[in-house]
């Protein structure tokens, strides 16, 4: 099943053409990596996929649903940007509770387990403002993995994580993949990407092209890049 399908995507920000006809197919149980230099439009692409940024032209289909100004975003998308959006004056658990209360799917016990899974103490009474960068990143990742997402978008997920954190992150991504979730990762480093991604793309001049580093991994079933 297709998790993400982008077709001829164009986007300009302040007269600057950020995306110039991007195509991408990502399936469930697949990990996709997108690399590129600062300002090339990687994060904008993630925001478009999760419906936070409008497009000038093209088609965005996420989890079988076209995304547009009048459509509703499908449920089951988790996202973590860099830096992750957190409530600094609440504790880690309270941050999760605030989000969980919207849909009321996850109970507090499940949220506590999720915090333990990402290496945070659910009983930590400190506010997030006292957290280190790595702890904030872990909390952001926990938010992205809430409510059993079918698609997870990660913007530079290794930023701020130490070696053990990066190793744990790989494990979480593998878990997500094996549970049928599609993971799209945006980052800078080819080593990190090749370790976890099935396919890696490089964004250059507003277009996606398959990276040579991806040849060792699974090839896409059909041409999905321009």
């Amino acid at each position, binding site marked *: 099943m297709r998790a993400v399908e982008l077709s001829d995507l164009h986007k300009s920000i302040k007269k600057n053409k950020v995306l110039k006809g991007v195509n991408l197919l990502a399936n469930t149980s697949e990990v996709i990596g997108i690399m590129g230099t*600062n300002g090339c439009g990687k994060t*904008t692409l993630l925001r478009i996929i999760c419906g936070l940024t409008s497009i000038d032209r093209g088609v965005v289909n996420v989890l079988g649903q076209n995304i547009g100004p009048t459509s509703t*975003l499908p449920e089951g998308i988790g996202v973590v*940007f860099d830096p992750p959006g957190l409530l600094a004056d609440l504790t880690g658990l309270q941050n999760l509770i605030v989000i969980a*209360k*919207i849909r009321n799917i996850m109970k507090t016990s499940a949220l506590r387990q999720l915090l333990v899974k990402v290496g945070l103490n659910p009983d930590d009474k400190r506010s997030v403002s006292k957290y280190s960068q790595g702890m904030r990143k872990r909390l952001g990742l926990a938010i992205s993995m809430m409510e059993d997402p079918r698609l997870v978008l990660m913007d530079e997920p290794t930023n701020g994580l130490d070696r053990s954190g990066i190793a744990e992150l790989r494990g979480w991504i593998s878990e997500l993949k094996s549970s049928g979730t599609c993971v799209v990762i945006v980052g800078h480093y080819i080593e990190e990407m090749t370790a976890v991604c099935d396919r890696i793309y490089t964004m250059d001049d507003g277009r996606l092209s398959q990276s040579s580093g991806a040849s060792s991994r699974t090839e896409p079933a059909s041409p999905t890049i321009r």
Partner: protein
Amino acid sequence: MLRSELYRAFHRKWTLIAFALGLLVVVIGYIAVQVGPLSFGVSLHEYNAWYVFLQVFGMNFNSIWGLTVPLLAALPFGDTLIYDMNHGFEVPLLMRIGKRRYFLTKWLANIIVIACVFGAVLSCSLLLALLWRRDTVLPVVLPPLIGDHIPSGLKPGIGVFASSYQPHVLSGLFWAHPGLYSLLALLIGILVTISIGSLTIGASFWFKNRYLILSTPFIFYMVLNVVLQFLGLYLWVPFLMAAGYLNAHNSIGSTVAYWSVILLFSLILVPLGATRYGKSEFTAKVSIDEKEG
């Protein structure tokens, strides 16, 4: 979403700080009233709990409460929207609900929080007034004479005292049922506070600085009063319903209408701002544009 916002509001320190500061302002107000009534020329027979309560929280534009409440009303949850927009916390929320619900819930949650905080402060103020002036008696009970002074807040006083002052739409209510009058004033006080405090949500679409947004109600209130004074309409600007029998200019109707218009204005700012927000690209306020240049 509303439950989520209320959970967030009541777990942040600023809600508690706003409540504590509100109480502090009230206590300072009581001290000022205790020191000042005779020098203000207020007769002791009027100086009962109901009167003191009303005087502390809105006798006039220059009262401590009147000056500080626009700032205090913004404090508990006024920065909820701008915080999300500046820190990227709107992302996980917008992923779960639509923009329209998100913005309206922010507005609604803000006014509920303000109503709770200031309802609690004003209720404490009323209780404090009753403790302060224990000689105040319920209107239905014939009060004893205290020295040469007759405690007010009593039915027998209606004819004696009410006729001494300018007629007011609710002066009769004050004399007949001062407790009811004070509760009504308390409710209007809450309406006033949520009206002025809710402006912060609308302001969040136009300004990015948190402190400027938290100051918006105060700036709005001051500018409005200066403009209305300039137009000679000062007396039609009731910050709160003052002691009705003393202030003939502020009718309950004009007070409620005035603040309802501001509340409506605050609500209208939300869809207007949301439209503007959508046009200016959501991303402009979040970290990605900073990062991607």
